[in-house]
């Protein structure tokens, strides 16, 4: 009988070759864990190459899950458990593993040839180099093939099921149920029932291997977390973002039109939305990034909710059209799933270095609203908010997601669709002015006095025919105007319109005695939250706030910043929010904490950095 030990949290990383099915394995382990009621957070890590040579370091793909009996904010700094399917996976991930951590390793792949391929002179399983870890050598492939001997599947197909054997074993180690995965496999291999049953047999064999061999003396349990009541699902940022766009279409009653060109890490939004035609969502895979945003703008002109999704290099190409949208004053949603740049940079790695581009990366004075989701599930809400602003103020809105939240996942307490905001639009249908002769006319640039938004009269509306364009327009009439005073007026009016966008106040979480505020934006929300929690547990006072609205910033931002001696701004860039804060709120002592490694911050490093600032008073 094995000992069962209770844990409050654990971080596990599944790592293998791209072809080993690690993402699927991680996804299933996540689903099992979610069903048990743990809070969790996950992060996949794929190679940029589609099929790097098998068994090499560039071909390693991994999936990390952090789960706990409390609410958690990040996928975990360092794994405590590593499942390594081959020598490359061991070598690529060992450095991240906690000292004393557990390694489950597939010994079948530790051949001389495979070891040489990744530069191991000696077999690490035999040379004592892993003695700081608890190593469980398991012949995963041999055991899987043996377990499937009775199945009429090829040896190759049997061997391919070894990821399910590993999943079964790890599920046993951490007391996860496997029934839902059995159902999942039956569904996935509907057309190949034999393959489905072979995978299920491998899954069960892995579980039984843990249960019956004496190699694993201890088994772990992580009790459920106390989460807010509700129905949950696990969701990635990209999926939540696509669903948020879909929901914005439902909430506004407008057809959604997505113009997009494939680009990592934003393509999954296009894939997801192309499945949602039943919501009246049209997706056009355009010939390039420029056409993608152009088509979206054309659709917006026609009365649709125009959307374009991309990453940094694509946003750069769209810049001219976004400026046109500023001038035309039409709604347009622009999503930038940021990745490490410049240029191709590290396309599968995360970064927050497009903030200044989002703010200023256009010609002329071309202000737009800028928002950033703070977690995977927040991507849903942020798109509803972006649509509210775009439709109310008739403006492009830029949403800055990033690779970390795009691919990361967390449990999401599902919203009630009855509670969706009302985003319905009043299109112009009647003339709104009179000409010199007193005849009724339509003035396309006559503004709503409160929002400064102009009327949205879509083609097809009788009597409101008008021409708009990139040339400066005369106030009210929209006619071409080269008048200097008019241009000055229009530039200032467009700026005032964006500055006047209503934004919820910045919420501050302050234990009451903090001198230092940590202020973040976007995907650093989780790591910052975890680090703040750690500091407070140690009795170190620190306040925190997080900006979801970067332009305009909440009205109380100046007042909040003024309350603190220092404001620490951690960013995965070289200080872009810090630059904006110094410009907008002179007098604030802004201390940047900046890393651009293509990786999210760990909560430990942030905790150390914040503590350092606090200590130095």
């Amino acid at each position, binding site marked *: 009988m094995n000992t069962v030990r209770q844990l409050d949290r654990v971080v596990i990383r599944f790592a293998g070759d791209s072809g080993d099915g690690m993402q699927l394995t991680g996804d299933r382990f996540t689903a099992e864990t979610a069903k048990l009621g743990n809070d969790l957070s996950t992060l996949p890590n794929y190679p940029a190459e589609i099929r790097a040579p098998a068994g090499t370091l560039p071909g390693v793909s991994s999936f990390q899950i952090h789960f706990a009996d409390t609410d958690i904010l990040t996928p975990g700094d360092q794994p405590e458990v590593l499942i390594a399917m081959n020598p490359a996976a061991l070598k690529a991930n060992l450095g991240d593993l906690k000292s004393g951590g557990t390694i489950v390793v597939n010994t079948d792949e530790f051949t001389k040839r495979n070891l040489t391929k990744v530069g191991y002179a000696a077999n690490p399983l035999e040379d004592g180099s892993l003695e700081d870890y608890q190593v469980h050598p398991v012949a995963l492939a041999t055991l899987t093939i043996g377990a499937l001997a009775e199945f009429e599947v090829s040896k190759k197909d049997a061997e391919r099921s070894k990821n399910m054997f590993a999943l079964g074993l790890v599920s046993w180690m951490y007391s996860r149920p496997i029934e839902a995965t059995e159902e999942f496999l039956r569904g996935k291999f509907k057309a190949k029932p034999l393959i489905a049953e072979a995978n299920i047999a491998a899954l069960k064999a892995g579980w039984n291997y843990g249960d019956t061999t004496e190699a694993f003396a201890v088994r772990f349990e992580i009790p459920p977390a106390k989460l807010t009541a509700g129905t*949950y699902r696990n969701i990635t940022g990209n999926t939540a973002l696509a669903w948020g766009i879909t929901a914005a279409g*439902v909430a506004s009653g407008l057809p959604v039109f997505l113009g997009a060109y494939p680009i990592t890490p934003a393509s999954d939004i296009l894939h997801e939305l192309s499945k949602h035609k039943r919501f009246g969502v049209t997706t*056009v895979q355009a010939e390039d990034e420029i056409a993608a945003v152009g088509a979206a703008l054309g659709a917006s002109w026609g009365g649709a909710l125009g959307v374009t999704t991309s990453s940094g290099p694509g946003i750069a190409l769209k810049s001219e059209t976004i400026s046109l949208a500023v001038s035309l004053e039409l709604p347009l949603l622009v999503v930038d799933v940021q990745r490490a740049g410049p240029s191709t940079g590290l396309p599968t790695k995360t970064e927050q270095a497009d903030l200044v581009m989002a703010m200023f990366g256009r010609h002329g004075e071309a202000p737009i609203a800028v928002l950033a989701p703070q977690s995977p599930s927040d991507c849903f809400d942020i798109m509803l908010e972006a649509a509210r602003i775009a439709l109310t103020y008739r403006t492009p809105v830029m949403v800055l997601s990033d690779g970390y939240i795009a691919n990361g996942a967390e449990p999401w307490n599902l919203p009630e669709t009855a509670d969706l905001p009302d985003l319905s639009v009043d299109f112009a249908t009647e003339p709104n002015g009179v000409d010199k002769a007193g005849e009724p006319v339509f003035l396309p640039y006559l503004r709503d006095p409160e929002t400064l938004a102009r009327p949205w009269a879509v083609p097809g509306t009788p009597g409101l025919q008008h021409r708009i364009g990139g040339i400066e327009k005369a106030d009210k009439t929209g006619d071409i105007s080269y008048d200097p005073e008019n241009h000055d007026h229009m530039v200032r009016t467009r700026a005032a319109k964006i500055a006047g966008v209503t934004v919820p106040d910045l919420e501050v979480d302050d234990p009451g005695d903090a001198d230092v505020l940590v202020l973040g934006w976007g995907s650093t929300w989780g790591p910052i939250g975890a680090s703040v929690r750690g500091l407070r547990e140690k009795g170190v006072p620190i306040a925190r706030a997080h900006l979801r609205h970067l332009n305009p910033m909440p009205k109380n931002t100046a007042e909040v910043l003024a309350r603190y001696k220092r404001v620490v701004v951690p960013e995965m860039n070289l200080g872009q929010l810090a630059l904006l804060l110094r410009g907008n709120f002179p007098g604030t002592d802004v201390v940047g904490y900046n890393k651009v490694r293509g990786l999210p911050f760990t909560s430990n490093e942030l905790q150390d950095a914040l503590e350092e600032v606090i200590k130095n008073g």
Partner: protein
Amino acid sequence: MVDVKLDAPKLKAKDFKSSQEVRWCPGCGDYAILAAVQSFLPELGLEREKIAFVSGIGCSSRFPYYLNTYGIHSIHGRAPAIATGLAVSRPDLSVWVVTGDGDALSIGGNHLIHALRRNVNLKILLFNNRIYGLTKGQYSPTSGAGTLTKSSPMGSVDSPFNPLSLALGSEATFVARTLDSDRAHLQEVLRAAAEHEGSAFVEIYQNCPIFNDGAFEVLKNPETRDESLIRLQHGEPIAFGDKVVVQSGYGLQVKDAAEVDPADVVVHKSDVDDPAYAFALSRLSGVALDHTPIGVFRNVSRPTYDQGVRTQVDEAATGVDRKEALDRLLHSGDTWTVL
């Protein structure tokens, strides 16, 4: 699909004039095209609000400002992309693109070829004056090699595009050419373009009196036009002046009518499915305009992109309660409940 009825116009040319003062240079070919279009539009049988003109940047792209329809004067080269978004999402509109040789063939070449490849329901009018006018006289992608301009003082070393060959290579379903000065012919071509379902590509030779005056004079001057202008008529033998067109090798050739058996003269058929025929026609004329066909080169039927996109959306969306479907989407897959 927009229901174009080419008869019984209720509206008049003046109904399509906007309040804006027209600001092209005196003598510009654009005036003639504008007048021809304004007097043609009533034939569409559509209300003015059902017509949208989208342009890029350049002299020709001011066109939408002068029409009392909906219009966008957009970005250099991007009109086909913007118009694609409109046409796909608004099947009830008649969407026209006005562009020039620099706008469509240089900065916007990519959008043009892809709009034609997809067969989006757009009527694309390319005003070709073989020069950059708005930027004051640089050579364009249709200027002949050796053209002397401000940016090519020793003569351009660029080889030009043949716009019709390019359109045909882009799988265009409707390809035509006409002249700014020949209102009857221009309107005849517009009529055919309007009736075509899918992309219609119309090259309009347009005179720029300031930077490239007389570029198409050989096709207009009564003394030379009979020898150089070929008026294509569907179902008619291709003959002009004392010349005819016959097959030759892989292409077509101009010969003296006297030397040819009338039975060998090519009879023009714009509905030939193989684009090689229309391509051969497009190659009869080079930069020198020696034997220049005008009229409808190609007019074939192929499913349109916008209709294809809409059919998929309509099939999926019909009868769907979106709020309920959203609720089902959110709850799809693995979910769990915390009490």
